[in-house]
């Protein structure tokens, strides 16, 4: 059973803006799922509905089998949320604000756990500091500590690396991986592809309030790993000769270009074989070039509504 099941989820705000249009999504237990999409695509609305901050117009969500409306206590208890905005209580100390969060989620005080969390986020030395004395990066760490204070089973990170320095980004990735190893499911939203690429097990792409693609990262990377070799022919061909059929070549540009698609990560790309076969078939070419489709291309194509 997925840890989060979202079915037919829609949200139209009072302004009439339709932020989500019939979203269906299942998040598997223990995975890192990246929700990728441009600004205004509905990423935050989706997260905020699951976390109880926004009321959905239609549809249902269950977290660990608990309906977020009927059984909101159990559903929310298993969720930790790191919001996009840096919102902290200026006058509180780091220790107090993290302990406050734990209490809010109905947990008995556990100083040992809070200590572990603060140390993991390099906040231990700052525990008696007031939040207003902290830098932006440190505040981000505090928000993560708050979200982890009640030992959630699911962690939502809404745009976790927006305006974050390299060091914190790396710390954050280490932490996310550690959490996954402990069995915590992590869902992050981002509009940076590298982030999804670096972290996620699966990637979902959202555009205009609709999920337009959910794919294993490996499968997406496979597409990414494909390259095309384009051969400019001296004499145009009417058809690909039978002797070259097994290369899966495509003939384009009115018969002036032969296109060979290959996997850069494969053990043999087959290029040498192709070139030998070509010279045997006495097909001469004047030029050659290679092209690679990046995840960026795939993504840009998707969000523009074209086929990648």
């Amino acid at each position: 059973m997925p840890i989060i099941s979202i079915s037919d989820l829609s949200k139209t705000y009072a302004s009439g803006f339709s932020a989500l249009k019939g979203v269906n999504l299942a998040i598997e237990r223990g995975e890192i799922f990246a929700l990728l999409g441009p600004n205004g695509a509905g990423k935050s609305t989706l997260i905020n509905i699951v976390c109880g901050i926004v009321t959905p117009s239609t549809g249902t969500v269950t977290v660990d089998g608990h309906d977020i409306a009927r059984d909101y206590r159990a559903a929310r208890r298993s969720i930790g949320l790191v919001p996009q905005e840096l919102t902290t209580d200026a006058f509180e100390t780091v220790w107090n604000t993290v302990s406050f969060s734990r209490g809010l989620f109905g947990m008995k005080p556990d100083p040992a756990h809070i200590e572990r969390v603060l140390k993991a986020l390099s906040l231990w030395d700052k525990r008696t500091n007031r939040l207003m004395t902290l830098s932006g990066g440190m505040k981000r760490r505090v928000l993560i500590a708050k979200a982890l204070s009640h030992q959630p089973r699911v962690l939502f990170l809404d745009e976790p690396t927006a305006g974050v320095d390299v060091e914190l980004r790396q710390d954050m990735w280490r932490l996310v991986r550690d959490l996954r190893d402990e069995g915590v499911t992590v869902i992050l939203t981002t509009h940076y592809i590298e982030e999804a690429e670096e972290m996620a097990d699966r990637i979902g792409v959202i555009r205009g309030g609709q999920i337009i693609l959910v794919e294993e990262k490996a499968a997406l990377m496979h597409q990414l790993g494909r390259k095309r070799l384009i051969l400019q022919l001296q004499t145009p061909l009417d058809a690909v000769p039978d002797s070259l059929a097994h290369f899966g070549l495509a003939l384009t540009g009115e018969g002036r270009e032969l296109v060979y698609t290959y996997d850069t990560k494969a053990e043999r790309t087959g290029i040498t074989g192709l070139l030998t076969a070509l010279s045997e078939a006495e097909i001469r070419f004047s030029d050659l070039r290679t092209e690679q489709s990046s995840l960026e291309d795939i993504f840009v194509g998707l969000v523009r509504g074209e086929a990648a």
Partner: protein
Amino acid sequence: MGGMNWPAVLAIYRFEMSRFWRTAGQSILAPVISTTLYFVVFGAAIGSRVTAVDGVPYGLFIVPGLIMLSLLTQSIANASFGIYFPRFAGTIYEILSAPISPVEVVLGYVGAAASKSILIGLIILATASLFVPLRIDHPFWMIGFLLLTATTFSLFGFVIGLWADGFEKLQLVPLLVVTPLTFLGGSFYSVSMLPPFWHAVSLANPVVYLISGFRWAFFGNADVSIAVSLAMTGLFLVICLGLVTYIFRTGYRLKS
């Protein structure tokens, strides 16, 4: 559903109280100073020329009204700020996403606001005792009215804090409605001293019933009967509870 989330109520309560203690200097000093000023002006300067009201020396007579005045303004100020500020700063996300019921949220915020204003009420009482020999005929009723009023007006403040969409609005109701009603509600005089017409008008002022009841707990006499005072205070409590329930049921200004 499981039981109540008491750790959450306690967390909110503690958080709100820590704000009070952090600014303990202002929180305690301000009411002490203003009470002293009232005593200097009304008690000594004017009071010495005013005859006893219903057999109670004027300086002593104003004690219940002074406490009520602070209780009302402090309850509203504390509760409205307590819930408005997280909305303003954005930290409300945590309250909304936590496994807490509206009842628990109200208990935490309103409980803390009421506690603070009761503390201030008691500080004023202690300050007053330095100026006049206190007399409290019905101490239990006195505490009862203190609790009831603090709770009711903290709820009212909570509603204002949810309704306000700017700091100006947060000040608007206390400034334009509550302070005038309190001053005209017999804090410094007995409404029965007024001419019949203004006396009748005053009876439309809800604060009259609070002050009258509270004064009865001190001196055993009142402008209106104690039963009416209790019933009216209870009625405000019910109205405020109804408003808060409505707000949470509709998600008004908290959730979209």
